[in-house]
């Protein structure tokens, strides 16, 4: 689009076409003391209580551990051990692949649903808060309980899901969902989406609320249909929020632990079909042997490098798309 970066618009009242609105970043940065005043409280709190302990644990990946007692500097031996010790060496690539499925599945199901419901609710006047509240309810409960709840729902022996399927004649769909390696991971992705759908929905709602109605009215006067309005006005303006949701979903899914643990157990049952990196990390750190601490730190370093790299790449992409649109 032919927008000049930094192009100025006189006033929001006149509702210029979205492609020409100047948003965001200012060029004239305030003086340093002011920058420091805004940034320092968060920086200090975050650095001291989060980054410093985390950094120390990552640093520990280069040491030998006996329980919590730190031994000698061993260079990359923990990393080597992690990548060669059976069966972790076989579990890691498999878990990684499952995380990829988890991310793709969550994007396709949870976040699409979140966007859909946010859009539907944005237009509706009646019942909006009711539906928003209902949809967020599963998020308010801890993953442990959600996992237990859905294990019951999907239970092949007592579960109502299969009873309903049998009652409506879908006998062949009444599977042992969490007990079959083929269906277990998809089932967990769906349950996870059930729990988290409110999150993208709320963010998209906030994003939609940020789009001024003048824009929509202008477009409607031009005779745009609902779909065109969504596709050409709202969706581009939602791009930053889509970016946030994508990156947070990516980070969240690659750190996924609670729900998978609650439904598939610590080994990602059945037969590792639901094993993810978060579980491998947990097993290494808390169910491992005497050298667990060093190995777990090494695994955390690897996960961090990967997640950080991909997230930064994604953020860069989204930033560029956004800039192309403004």
């Amino acid at each position, binding site marked *: 689009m032919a927008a000049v970066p930094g192009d*100025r618009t*006189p*006033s929001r009242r006149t509702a210029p076409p979205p492609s020409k609105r*100047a948003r965001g*970043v200012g*060029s004239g*940065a305030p003086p340093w003391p002011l*920058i420091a005043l*805004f*940034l320092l*409280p*968060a920086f200090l*709190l*975050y650095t*001291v*209580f*989060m*980054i410093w302990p*985390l950094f120390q*644990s990552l640093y520990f990946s280069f040491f030998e551990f006996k329980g919590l007692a730190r031994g000698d500097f061993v260079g990359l031996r923990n990393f080597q051990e992690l990548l060669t010790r059976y069966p972790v060496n076989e579990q890691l690539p498999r878990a990684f692949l499952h995380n990829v499925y988890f991310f793709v599945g969550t994007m396709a199901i949870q976040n699409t649903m979140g966007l859909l*419901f946010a859009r539907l609710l944005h237009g509706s006047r009646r*019942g909006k*808060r009711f*539906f928003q*509240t*209902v*949809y*967020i*309810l599963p*998020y*308010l*409960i*801890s993953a442990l*309980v959600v996992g*237990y*709840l859905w294990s019951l*729902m999907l239970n092949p022996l*007592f*579960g109502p899901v299969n009873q309903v399927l049998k009652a409506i004649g879908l006998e062949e769909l009444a599977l042992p969902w969490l007990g079959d390696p083929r269906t277990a991971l998809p089932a967990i992705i769906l349950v996870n989406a059930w729990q988290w759908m409110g999150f993208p929905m709320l*963010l998209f709602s*906030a994003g939609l*609320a*940020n*789009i*001024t109605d003048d824009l929509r009215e202008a477009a409607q006067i031009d005779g745009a249909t609902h779909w065109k309005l969504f596709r050409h006005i709202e969706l581009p303006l939602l791009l*930053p929020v889509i970016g946030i949701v994508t*990156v*947070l979903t990516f*980070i969240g899914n*690659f*750190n996924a632990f609670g729900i998978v643990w609650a439904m598939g157990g610590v080994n990602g049952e059945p037969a590792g079909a639901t094993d993810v990196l978060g579980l491998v*990390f947990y097993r290494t750190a808390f169910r491992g042997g005497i050298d667990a*601490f060093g190995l777990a*730190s090494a695994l955390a370093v690897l*996960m961090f490098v990967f*997640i*950080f790299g991909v*997230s*930064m790449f994604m*953020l860069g992409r989204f930033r560029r798309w956004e800039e192309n649109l403004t």
Partner: protein
Amino acid sequence: MTRPSPSGPGRVGLTSVAVYGLLCGYALVVLGPLLLVVSNALRPTREIFKNPVGLPTSPSLDSFVKAWQEASFNVYFFNSLMITVASVFLATAVASLAGYMLGRYRFPGSHLLSAYFLAGLMLPFRLAIVPLFLLLNDMGLIDNRMGLILVYAATGIPFSIFILSTFFRQLPRELSEAARIDGAGELTIFARVMLPLVRPALATVVVFQFVPLWNDFFFPLVLLRSTGKWTLPVGMTRFFGEFQADWSTLFAGLIITTLPLILLFLLATRQIIAGLTAGINK
């Protein structure tokens, strides 16, 4: 079959029926399993073990009484409220300042700082429990609610800055420029002009920080020692045995602990809607 919507012909009415059908349908999918929580909270655990999914034969509130008393909910409730509110408030306050600066301006190192602030989200924070424990131990903050608040607030910062900076970035620039021409300083612009405009995002950030902290039992278990300082979820862990859990009491406790969250959420959605109208009228 339905009243035609005032804004359009019959077709619109039909779509809005479909829309409401979809919304209600999904609401059932959400509420169905949650009813199981309520139903099981009204049944004794023995019955749950024997028939995991079933209606209460003789509904009783015993589990609620037990949860309230045995988990010392009256004590822990205050701790939970104090710790969670203080943590979320602290994190949101410092994160909106930082998010504003990072979202609105580019200065040398701003990208690097944004990445730095996001990095904390990408590591399993449980990994850091030992160094964190030693750090707080050195500072004399073990078994101290303030120590837990500082840790909790720190964990909320990456997420909050990430979301808030994105929303600040999207605000039209002429707003701040108009205010600046009127002679307002940066802090005034931030507090009086910009902050109110990101209210929907603020509400979202508060909700999504609040819930995991409210439900967390791991950090209080490790960082707080006196039972008098424990929080609600720590009280709930008393019902998780080595080989079995007291599900009925757990479910009852869950309902009690979740009610305040629902209240919080109702307040938050009001903010999201209020933010919408503010956007129109400004």
